[in-house]
């Protein structure tokens, strides 16, 4: 059974309290390093940072208001070749779901990683946060407002800035991890919740790390459910709007006409799992004559070519496992509504196989398995 506890907060130092706890894990040698977001020296952003030396724990935060990269990608780099020491990593729920999916595709090795998941109110676009700072918002102040808003699950939009679209429609505000840091429903100025999974509980006992056991506050469930239902409503609205906009091939092409085929969505995506992308191989380096033949048949062709096939094939590969983190859209220089596309299409395809990406490490991704008795020709699915 997982152990349910609280950490007492003194003097409104919420982040510091959790960081102290993480420091203890490092000091006691449970882990050799810690991956955690850290403020940039410029003060207008945060990046994931791998910390070995505890004196480097200054300016780190567990509540990073931005998510410049999907840490599932970072953990793939970190763990896939010879990671022989334990590392604890602080992640948002969508990052953990990405980690679970990439583990299934054998691109992350979890054995030496301890996942620390944190309740997520949402994240801002990197540029929005930088603008807030420019407009005079100070992080200490914003941090406190952000965390306090989580107690009752209030909508948070400082200075008229909103969370990223993907966050506004994310139905997974709570992470499932080895260590779960809980804020929704907690009176964070006094205490925050923490839950330790079995494999770590033993380690904690061995190293003499004790926690004050305490159940969750009664209204935490209510708060979490409220957030989930708000976001589900938003999600359904986005689905509906997208379907109204994309009715046929022509409307899709119109919507995506500004795609510059930069492949940023692919680079940012935690799920895009091919080691060598077919769109970056010689298969798509056409001969000059080929372009002319296409142009000859159609009268004229859009350049660069192959945008439609790129999006469709990328979807065919990743949409069953799309965790909806929306970093594809954050990375898109043309501001295409790729989150809405992948969420709308993904939802239907995932339902086809009753699959929820990131739900359970033991569920096999739909593309990697089959059932003998399914998808009959008569059903019209084929």
């Amino acid at each position, binding site marked *: 059974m997982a152990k349910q506890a609280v950490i007492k907060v003194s003097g409104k130092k919420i982040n510091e309290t959790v960081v102290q706890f993480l420091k203890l894990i490092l000091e006691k040698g449970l882990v050799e390093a810690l991956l955690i977001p850290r403020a940039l020296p410029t003060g207008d952003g945060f990046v994931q940072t791998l910390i070995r030396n505890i004196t480097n724990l200054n300016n780190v935060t567990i509540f990073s208001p931005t998510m410049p990269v999907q840490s599932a990608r970072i953990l793939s780099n970190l763990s896939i070749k010879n990671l022989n020491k334990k590392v604890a990593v602080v992640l948002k729920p969508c990052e953990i779901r990405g980690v679970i999916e990439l583990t299934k595709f054998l691109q992350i090795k979890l054995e030496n990683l301890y996942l620390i998941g944190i309740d997520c109110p949402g994240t801002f676009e990197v540029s929005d946060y930088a603008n807030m700072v420019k407009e005079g918002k100070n992080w200490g102040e914003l941090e406190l407002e952000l965390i306090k808003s989580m107690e009752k699950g209030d909508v948070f939009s400082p200075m008229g800035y909103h969370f990223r679209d993907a966050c506004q429609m994310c139905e997974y505000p709570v992470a499932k991890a080895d260590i779960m840091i809980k804020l929704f429903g907690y009176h964070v100025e006094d205490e925050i919740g923490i839950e330790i999974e079995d494999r770590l509980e033993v380690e904690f006992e061995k190293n003499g790390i004790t926690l004050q056991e305490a159940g969750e506050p009664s209204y935490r469930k209510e708060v979490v459910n409220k957030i989930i239902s708000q976001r589900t409503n938003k999600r359904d609205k986005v689905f509906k709007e997208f379907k109204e906009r994309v009715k046929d*091939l022509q409307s899709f092409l119109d919507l995506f006409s500004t795609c510059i085929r930069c492949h940023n969505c692919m680079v940012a995506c935690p799920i895009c799992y091919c080691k060598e992308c077919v769109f970056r191989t010689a298969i798509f380096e056409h001969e000059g004559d080929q372009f002319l033949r296409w142009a000859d048949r159609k009268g004229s062709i859009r350049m660069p070519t192959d945008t*439609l*096939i790129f999006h469709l094939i990328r979807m*065919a590969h990743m949409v069953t496992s799309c965790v909806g983190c929306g970093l594809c859209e954050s990375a898109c220089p043309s501001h295409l509504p790729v989150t809405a596309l992948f969420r709308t299409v993904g939802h*239907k395809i995932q339902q086809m196989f009753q699959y929820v990406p990131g739900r359970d490490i033991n569920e096999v991704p739909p593309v990697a398995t089959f059932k*003998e008795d399914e998808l009959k*020709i008569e059903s019209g699915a084929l």
Partner: protein
Amino acid sequence: MAEFEPRIVAFLCHWCTYTGADLAGTTRQQYPPNIRIIHLMCSGAVDSIYILKALIDGADGVLIGGCHPGDCHYQTGNYKARRRIAILKGILNQMGFTEDRIWLRWISASEGKLFADTVTQMVEELKKMGPNPMRTLWNA
């Protein structure tokens, strides 16, 4: 004006449907000549990219032929093809490409007649749909 003649690109597995197509020929089954066959070892070898490439480059329909479920020469290739194609078709449907231009059919080596009937039926359906719009769209 001449009647629209659809072009079908067919990906047929070596062990069942290709042999079935062969049988259709040797037994002199009649079927329309609108099909161009590409011979693969297994329906499981059909990547979604082949199907889309054919459609985007102007094929009016794509037929994928494999062994009946349970009969795959490689045990499970056709089951995997089935999921892959269901996912691809699901994606296209969600995006409003509702016309049914992709067909996956199980046709064994002994079903020459079924092969001829399938092609005949597919050609009829595609004639009703008309030409594939991707053939002429400049920005597809």
